[in-house]
Each structure stands twice: as C-alpha cells, then as structure tokens.
C-alpha cells in the first residue's frame, strides 16, 4: 500500500512499490495525462511534478513518492476548470500538433517558470529537453516567453 496525493486528492494504491509511478497513475488511478513515450527518461512525455520538481514518472518507483504530492497536467487548471497560464499560452500560440508529448512539456515548463520566472533561451534549452516528434519547438519557445510575460503582468 502506497499513499500519496495526486492533483490534490489523497490516494492509496495497493501495488508493488517498484511499479513506476507512470503506470500507477495510468493503470491504477486512470490519470491518463502523463504519457508513456520511451520508458528510459529520454523523451519527457511522462513528466509530472513531485513536490514541485519536474520528474520522469516512467523511472520513478511509486514507493518513492509515498507521502509526496504529485501534480499531473490534469491538475494544472484551477477548480473552475480555467487553464493555467502556461496552458493558456499553449492555446494562444496553438502549440500542439498531435499533442501526445505536450503534457510533459507543459509540466516541465511549469517547473521552469516556478524557479526561473523570466527564462532566457539558454535557460530554456538547458531545461526543456523533452522530445516532440511533430516539431512544435518554435511555438513551444514562443509559448514559454508568452507565459513568462503573462506571469510577470499578473
């Protein structure tokens, strides 16, 4: 039994503690926003926030998040369903193409802007290492700067 918090709700899961958090979220909890892309912490489609830190849920044993707070892309909108500023920037810039990798990008950027509210392009290059096969990179960069500007005005 592992107990932790997912998007604000306490959960307890009866499972093997070595099962990756990604598969616990997807299979045991039906939290389907985090995606399986590579399974080896290369692509970032599985990224979630664990106590605010952007993490690869595909290589994180669920046992290691006992007592932690996990936020997935589903947990970013507010209680009324309004998109987070980063999600709104994603919509404004019409970033996604197929969209499969985007939850991981949005999570990674959420963590980046928390620690670095006005990131430079170098900050972005060093931090946002996710893969998007559709090639939405120019729009991702624009959306990050847009979100940073929106956060600064808030």
């Amino acid at each position, binding site marked *: 039994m592992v107990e932790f918090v997912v998007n604000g709700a306490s959960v307890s899961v009866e499972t093997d503690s070595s099962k*990756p958090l990604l598969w616990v979220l997807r299979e045991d909890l039906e939290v389907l926003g985090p995606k399986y892309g590579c399974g080896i912490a290369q692509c970032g489609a599985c990224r979630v926030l664990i106590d605010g830190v952007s993490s690869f849920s595909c290589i994180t044993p669920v046992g290691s998040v006992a007592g932690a707070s996990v936020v997935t892309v589903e947990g970013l909108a507010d209680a009324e369903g309004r998109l987070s500023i980063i999600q709104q920037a994603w919509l404004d810039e019409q970033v996604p193409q197929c969209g499969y990798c985007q939850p991981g990008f949005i999570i990674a950027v959420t963590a980046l802007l928390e620690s670095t509210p006005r990131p430079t392009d170098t900050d972005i290059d060093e931090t946002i290492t996710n893969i998007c096969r559709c090639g939405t990179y120019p729009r991702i960069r624009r959306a990050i700067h847009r979100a940073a500007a929106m956060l600064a005005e808030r």
Partner: protein
Amino acid sequence: MPLLLSRRAFLLTGAALGGTALVAAVGGVGYLASVDVDGLDGYVDGDRAVLNAFLTIHEDGRVVVNVPRTEMGQGIHTGLAMVVAEELDIPFDDRISVEFPVEPLPAYASWFNVLQQRPEEASGPVVWVGRRVLGLLGFIATGASASTMALWYPMRVAGAAARQMLLAAGAARLGVPVNQLTTADGFVRHEASGQSLSYGELAREASVLPPPNDPPLKPASDWRLIGRSQPRVDLPAKIRGEPVFGMDVVQPGLLYASIRHAPVFGAQVARVVNEAEVRTVAGVRDVAIIDGRQVAVVAESWWRAEQAAQRLDIEWAQTDGDGINSAEMSVRLQAALGSDAPYENINDGDVEASIANSSMSVIEKTYEVPFLTHACMEPMNATVIVREDGTAEAWVPSQSPLGVRTGVQRGTEWGSVEPTSITCNITMNGGAFGRRGDLDVAAQAAFLATRHRGRPVKLIWSREEDVGRGLYRSHAAARLRAVLGPDGLPSAYDALVAAQSVIESVAGRNLPFNPGPNGDRLTVEGVDKLHYAIPNRRIRSQHVASHVPIGLWRSNGFSFNTFFTESFIDECALAAGRDPLDYRRALLRNSPRHLTVLNRVAEMAGWGSAMAPGRGRGIAIEECYRSVVAQVAEVTVGEDGVVTVDRVFCAIDVGMVINPDAVIAQMEGGIAFGVTAALMSSITLESGAVVESNFHDFPMLRLANAPEIEVTIVDSGLPPGGAGEPGIVPIAGAIANAIQAATGRRIRSLPLTTTETIAERRTRTVLPTSAV
C-alpha cells in the same frame, strides 16, 4: 448503426447504390454526385438530427462534423470543420465538435488517393466505377497529404446542402417563401417580420427533407472562415491532458499485452524456452505465439506484461537475413546502380546520344540515405474485444479504418473466430507519419482478444519494439549524371535510383494483391525534376529486395530523392560556375509557379548578402502533393566541425489555403522532421537485426537544436494542394548545399553529421572528419 456490412449486404447495397448512382452520374458534379449518393439520408435520433454523412445538429445548437480522416497532428479536423461551418453559416466556436465517423460510408472513401482526380473536377466512367468500388470496400485512409484535396469540396457541398434544408424547414415553419429568408450565425432569419429560428430548432424538420441537388456555394468573396486562421478544435482537450489517444482507451475488464518480435525480420518462433516460468509471474494471464512470428504476454497491467516479456527466452528460427548488416546493404545498392536492366520510368529525348556527343565531361555523383523509422511519440497500440456474442470492436490510433478492419479479420482468423461484426473506432493519433496505415498491430491485438473472449485486450509495443522492429523508410541510393550545354545548364540528365520498393512491401502485408516493385512511383518521386527545363531526361529505378519490411514514411521517395537531386543541381551549378539560385531560375524559366516560390524564399532569406566565415546558405525546391515548396537553410559550421542549422526560410504555394496557421505549423513540423533525418538519425543493421532501440541511439531534434523558422504562404489562386508532407522535402538538400557553401565540402550521404552527446538529453551534430 456502427456495424460492418456483411459481404452479402455489400452486394445488395452495391446494386442499390449503383442504380442511384446512375441517376447522379447524369446529374453531374452536384450535390448528389459528390455527397448524397454515397452518403446517408437524413434522420432524427432523439435530440439530434443527422442532415447528411458529414453533419449532425443537436437541438441545443451544437454541431457535430463527421471528418472521416485521422487527426494525427496535421489539423485536418479543424480545416474540414471550417469548410462545413463556412457554408452552413455558423460561427466557428466551441459549439462545433468533430468526430471520426464509425460507420465506413462510401461517401468517406479515399478515392482521390487512388484516382488522383479532384472531386470538383472528377468525371468519366473510370471515376464512376472507381468511386463505387473503393466506397463499398470502405477504403478510408489518411495519407499522401490528400485529405483537404479529397474532401474540401464534398464537405462544402454537405454544409451548403444542409443550409438549404434548414432554410426550407424555416420557410415551412414560418409560412413564408424561402427567398425571403437569410441565414447568419446559426439562425434562419425573416427580416420582414423580425422572426428568427435557430438551426437547433429547425434541424429535425430539415433532416427529413430531400437534399437539394447542386446547392449554391458561397463565392470566395463571401468567405469569413476559409483562408483565415482558426484555432484547432482538438487542442483544448490535448492541452488539458484529456484521454484522446489510443493509449488512453479504458474499457471495463481491460487486459494488457506486451510483445516481442524477432530481432531478424521474418524469423519464426522456434520455441519459447521458459514459457511455463513466465506464466507464473504475478499478474500474467497468458503467453501467446502470434502467427508463429511474435510472442505476447497478457497481464492485468502493461507494466507487468512488459516485465514478464523482458524475461522471455525465445529461440528464433534461422533466416537468410541473419548475416545482413548495413554495409552489405550498401554494397547491394551500389551494385544495383550498375544494373544493366533497370526499370525505365521516363525516357524523354536521347540521353545516351546527348552525353556521347557532348564535348563536356560527364558530371556523375552517387548519393545514399539510410533506413529510418517513424518514432511516433505514441507507441504502437491497439485495443480489441471479441465478445461472447461474436461481435468485435477495436479502438486504434490508425490512419486507416480499413486497415484496422482487415487486421481484426486476420487476427481473429488466426484465433479461428469469425466475428459477426467488426466496429472500428479511430482515436486521435499521437503522430503517425505513415506508420499507422499498416494492419499489423490491430491483427495482433485481435488474435490475443480471441484468447480472452469478453475482455478487451490492449496491446502496447514498447519503444524498443517500435524503434527496433518497425517498418522502415527504405535505405536508398542514386547515381545522377548530367552533361552541361554551352549555357552551363544540363542538356542531359540521367538518374538511376536503387531502393527497396515501398509499395511492394506495404501491399504484401496489407492487400490481397501486389502490384510488384517495378514502376513504384514512390521510388522515383522527386527524381524526375520535370519543372526544370532539361531537353533530355531519363529516369530509371532498380528494386533491391531485402528482409527488412518497408513502410510508408512521411514524404516517401521525396524524402531521399529531393536530397539527391537538389544536391546534384547545386553540384552542376558549381561546375558551371553559377550561383545556385540563378542556376535554378534559369532551369525554371518555363515554370512560373515554381519561379515565384523560389524568388519568394530567396527574398525572405536575403540571398546573396554576405555571411560570416563558417556560415553558409543553401537552397532547394520541389513540387510535391500538388504544392510547390522552396527552402533556404542557414548553417554555421564551427572550427570543431559542429553544425548548427540556425534558420530556415520556407515559401510554400499550397494552392488555396483553408487554415493558414495549420499550413505554417505543418511547414515548421516538416522542417523539424526533415532536420532530424538530415543531420541526426539512421537505422542500421547488424547480423540482420536493427541496432537502434530507443531515443538515446535514435536521436531526434530537441528544442536546443531546433532552428528558427520563417514561413511564407504564396497565394497562387490554384485549388488546394497538400501540406502534410512538403515541409520535409527540400530541407536535407538545402542543408547539404549550405554546408557546401560554408565549408566547400560536399556530403552525399545522410545523415550529414554524426550526433554526439554533450550532456543528458543534449546533443550536438558534427561533420565527419573525412567528408568528400
């Protein structure tokens, strides 16, 4: 009813449709011919009114547009919903939703892909028969950048016809002549009395009216949506992380499966050495050999299934492919370039005589590209249930419902089950790029489902299976020859392409017939360069068989041939001492459409302006998918050989544009896809098996290496062309030409650079030290 017609029903329906179609054929290219004959009569179902095959209106005003094409990121659901909304006169807002229709109506058939005639122009007996046959087969596929070309007109007609039916219903309700009514923003209005009725109120009455023949279409001057960027209808759900992909399908009682394919393609399973042991792993329900060729583990969790699959000890039978490596494949391709009897695709003028009689020396260059994989971000998957009552249902991220249906038929046949019906649900695709037209995954899942009747089985390939056991872009080579005339332009151009035929491989896996490798136009597309004024031209091809399965891959032959030809044209320009842009201008003197695009991209890039040492610019152009696309790449090559693609300029004449922002996105995405192929990735063979297995050794572009991209849409006023693939096509040639400009070095094989890891998930690309 989302039920598959039985074969007998096919015949009966065929006869009935044939009779109606005869009437329509006489009627011409109007509504009946393009929509209704192959479509659906209107009907009422609860609070919703189905007006035709493409359109449903709910009582509360919500509009559902049926788009029978796969949304895989290209924005087709939005573009085609826009044309319906345009003609229907409704705002493009969140009251519009798009569904991929479950029932494979003949109106949805992808006959344009086969017959290559636009619906608005199509006529004649071949079209008439072809449409009916492909419609009754349920041939629905998304590919060849064809969806807008195929459906923009029929779906406009569908929207316009529904509007006419709503007007007629309004006239009947208000008791006024229809010509006193107008429509706007989803209402039928009677100006004189000030009365108005919403479409939602009228839809049910409208749906049972006879559809009009030849409804008037809005003139372009009245368009308020077409040609103006609209937000994608599918993005809010994707940004919220809602479950829209095949991977996200959840059904009661779901079982999960993981799979192992033979490392050497085509090998049979000789024995699963430790089957009994794997069966005892916690959560494992089944270990199954599929078609003698793959081994799957079925469990209550995919993680469990994959863990157990990792423990499988499988003996594979020996095959002829066991000893093949990439070097051997190269030798075979080079040998094929010396073939004395290649297939002759084009022979205009007299190439041999022109070369023999020239006093100039022949320019002859050889180029080569490796196998590549699609690496869709969503790994391959399919969910299938075979119920106790004999019905089957599939949920698959697929480019082809026909492929899914055929796959389920094949897989259930392996399990000796004949489903009484097969329902195919096409989910959002997390990338596709040609990979998801094949029936393989659906067949495997269906077979597993026959072993677990009444429970849905979701088969997921691990990333390692996807990269290492896929269907690949051909390893290909070409020998290009030319002699230059007194003006420095080629007077003769002779091309020979050696590659494994895509069509032969795809047909072998998916179709009941095989047209064979000769004359496969996907092998030579991009080599003919018909828009270049060259008096003598010969195009030949040589199929080189291998044990490697070849798949459709975004832009197919163009992905390598345009690299070959646009590199070669630069080499000819260099030999003639001419600027590559001026050289192409001279070659395009008879092709004003191409010349416009070329000049536009040159202007965007500031062609001819000075660049710093170590920097260079390269240009390339192609006509493909009825569009013309040109790109200029700007690269920097450091003293350490590190290559950076700094900026890419792209001009695209895609004909008439429905949703400009979607076209721009496709160019951006195509360029990224093409930069990965040009600089970074390859699939290599060792002892018959693929070496690469995941994103650490099949590197792809990331944010840090992504170039800045500027796109301009050139408006030629022509009918719509394709946008999904052209963005990739010129980029490798443009980059190779830019590297030549920067360094004086010509690289004739892809990838142009080797990828080095500089930190976790960060790479740089470096020129080989011994480039020719």
